[in-house]
């Protein structure tokens, strides 16, 4: 890594409060030219807030920012962009129906006509220098998550950004895509760009960055310079050091190993030749058949977008099956509506925690009664909501699942992603499911919450709940599942035992390589 000593960004004593919560407490942060600087911390540690300040989205309550040595006043993201600082947000901001080129021109085109020729020329150069290959005429919705991430980065280069802030860029990428993405990052810094890499994954931070800053509960808890350190040799010590910084207060334990093999083998949920289409009417789920037994965790592995979401929704009752049959304890439940699926004990944790799994403008308590608001004690005489019972239920979930919130009257939009996910898990488990469908339940979450959720799923399965666990995280699948089914382009191409299968084997199957 060619790290110079010249710093392109200096943030000094940054403090930012949201009401009572101190999101950033006197944080110093500096970025050197040609560096990949990882900003590490668990959810709610203040990483994104700090970088939102640097990108001009938030104003700090206190503190100064220097960009290229000059004091900067950032009133809006445009000011930051003008100074060469651009941010790629965790939730991408592309227009799905427009082409790559049109998305890049959006907001940068200052003329009345589209500067296609000029843009094409410039973009060709950008992709040549940085090795960012993407077809300009393709519509965004046709691209994979990894390619969309690439478009966001190209967009920033097109605007002339020298400093790129990437907020959890790998959370939507498959393992192979991550490798390619890291190569691109290395190319970028080699040609003089500087990158802030927000992540909560220690391995990624060690893998890619030359400096690591660790935040914990709004404070900076340490900084590690990796220049001249043999990471391979000292990996263990480094990890321990970082973990201690990240979880100053909380204890960090290894995950519990898998419980004993299930003795009961009653089939609970069976799919026979289930075929369904996605929202655009394309057949994305093809002739899928499998059985989940009592107390079993059945994992589903596969590259994102290969029919996993449709599979989950078909079982949850949110999507119609075109052909095939779904049975629960020998009862045909094909194409039953959500409410009847719920009555039979099937509950579903969606991957989309922000726009599907919760209502941002509802309180935590109101979010906790999604499927049971018509039931006692939440409703009196079948008509009136019982606010006290609803609040108590919310507070109970906050306590039992250690959700970070003042009380259940807090609006969900004030919670962090990890806490929203905990709430969704807490809610679906509070209905005592007999079948739990969980789609990427730990995706984008910090180590502690991930641990917590995996343990909770394991514990439930030991008590007899059948779990369908969809994930792109192979470690998670191997740790939690009894069996793993691999999906490739909508088909379930093979089922392997969770313990014996190697990551390499599953990885090959995910790419459709069968032998």
């Amino acid at each position: 890594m060619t790290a110079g000593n010249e710093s392109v960004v200096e943030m000094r004593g940054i403090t930012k409060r949201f009401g009572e919560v101190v999101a950033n407490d006197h944080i110093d942060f500096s970025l050197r030219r040609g560096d990949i600087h990882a900003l590490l911390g668990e959810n709610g540690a203040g990483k994104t807030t700090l970088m939102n300040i640097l990108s001009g989205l938030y104003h700090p309550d206190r503190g100064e920012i220097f960009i290229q040595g000059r004091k900067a006043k950032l009133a809006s993201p445009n000011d930051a962009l003008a100074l060469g600082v651009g941010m790629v947000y965790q939730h991408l901001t592309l227009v799905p129906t427009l082409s790559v080129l049109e998305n890049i021109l959006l907001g940068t085109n200052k003329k009345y006509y589209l500067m296609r020729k000029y843009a094409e020329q410039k973009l060709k150069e950008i992709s040549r220098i940085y090795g960012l290959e993407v077809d300009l005429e393709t519509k965004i919705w046709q691209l994979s998550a990894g390619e969309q991430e690439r478009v966001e980065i190209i967009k920033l280069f097109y605007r002339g950004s020298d400093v790129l802030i990437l907020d959890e860029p790998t959370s939507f990428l498959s393992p192979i895509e991550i490798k390619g993405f890291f190569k691109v990052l290395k190319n970028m810094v080699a040609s003089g760009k500087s990158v802030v890499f927000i992540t909560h994954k220690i391995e990624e931070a060690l893998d890619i960055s030359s400096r690591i800053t660790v935040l914990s509960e709004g404070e900076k808890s340490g900084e590690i310079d990796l220049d001249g350190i043999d990471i391979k040799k000292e990996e263990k010590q480094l990890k321990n050091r970082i973990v201690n910084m990240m979880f100053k207060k909380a204890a960090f334990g290894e995950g519990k190993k898998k419980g004993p093999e299930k003795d009961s083998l009653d089939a609970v949920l069976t799919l026979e030749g289930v075929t369904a289409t996605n929202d655009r009417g394309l057949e994305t789920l093809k002739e899928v058949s499998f059985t989940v037994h009592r107390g079993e965790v059945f994992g589903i592995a596969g590259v994102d977008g290969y029919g996993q979401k449709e599979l989950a929704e078909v079982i949850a009752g949110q999507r119609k099956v075109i052909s095939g049959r779904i049975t629960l304890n020998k009862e045909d439940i094909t194409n039953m509506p959500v409410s009847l699926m719920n009555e039979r004990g099937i509950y579903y944790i969606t991957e989309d925690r922000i726009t599907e799994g919760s209502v941002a403008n509802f309180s935590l308590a109101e979010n906790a009664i999604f499927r049971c608001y018509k039931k006692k004690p939440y409703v009196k005489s079948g008509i009136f909501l019982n606010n006290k019972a609803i609040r108590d239920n919310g507070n109970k979930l906050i306590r039992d699942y250690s959700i970070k919130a003042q009380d259940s009257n807090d609006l969900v939009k004030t919670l962090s992603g990890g806490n929203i996910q905990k709430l969704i898990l807490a809610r679906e488990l509070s209905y005592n499911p007999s079948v739990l469908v969980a789609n990427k339940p730990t995706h984008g979450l910090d180590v502690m919450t991930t641990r917590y959720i995996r343990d909770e799923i394991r514990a439930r399965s030991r008590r007899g709940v059948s779990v369908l666990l969809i994930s792109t995280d192979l470690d998670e699948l191997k740790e939690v599942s009894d069996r793993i089914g691999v999906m490739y382009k909508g088909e379930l191409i093979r089922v392997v035992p969770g313990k014996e299968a190697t990551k390499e084997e599953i990885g090959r199957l995910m790419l459709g390589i069968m032998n």
Partner: protein
Amino acid sequence: MNLIRIGSKQAAGVVIGPVFAILAALVAGGIILLIIGFNPLKTYYELFSLGAGTYLGITESLKRMAPLLIMSAGLIIVFKAGVWNIGGNGQFLIGAVLAAGIAPLIMDKLPIFFYFVVLGLLGFIGGASWVCIPAILKAKYEINEIIVTMMMDFIAVNFTSYLVRYPLNAQPGLFPQTAVLPIEKRLPNISLTEVHIGLIVGLVMVVLVHYFIKRTALGYEFRFAGENKKAAIYAGINIKKVIVLAMLLSGGFAGLAGANDVLGIKGSFQAEWNPQYAFSAIPLVFLARFNGFAVIPLAYFFSFLSIGGEFMSRAANVPVFFVQVAEALMLIFFGVSEYLKKRSKLF
């Protein structure tokens, strides 16, 4: 739930927006008055003194509140559920013509109380029926309800006009209108006033709807669907049911408002009658942020504006549509204040 427990600071924040909007609209309206050659101070003085400073002005304003309140009750439901119904004027007319057409037939056959109840129900059914087509099209085929409810307005205007000129015309050859109800078959006044009890009906409706939305399981479904349709489907809520029910209720309330005006003020349905209350009720409900209690003072204010505007146009020759200009300005400035609020929250 959260709205019920708001602190005083937030309560102030809720009030500031509409107050700012009203004041800014009056200032901007003043500038417009100046441009078209009127003295804004004098005009406003007359508006306020005629509209809110005389017995007649106050009585007329209170009477005008009734249809606005009833219609707002329905609009709160439909907007909270995330669906649009901007065809309130047509639903109002259908409710009114149904009540006006049936009233003469049953007025001597039913006890007075039941007579009012039946006509109120008829108005409600009439208004609801007029929204059936847009509701079904929206729920079943996702056809834009804004356009269809609006188009149904034009049909309602012409359909009621036909009914009043031909089948329901009480005295063919004279001015076309339904049979005029005798005074004792119209809504009685609230004791000691000259305001008919429609005002009380309106107040009760808007408060009932407020609690219905906030405190009932069905209200929760409506709010849920309005806040996040995707999450509502995920939670197993029948979105189609919510859309149809919310639209029918809002149409029903508009029709009830129509029956109320026939029974309270007019005593008949006259050709070309189209007071277009929906165009006041829609901005009013937005200004009130769908809060039933906030609707009440705003409804008075809007009534006063229109009554004061009518009086003023006679006294000072200011065109009556100036009031509509003022209402439109209020909505624009309300949008501005919402925007400013969002910005100040962000930074």
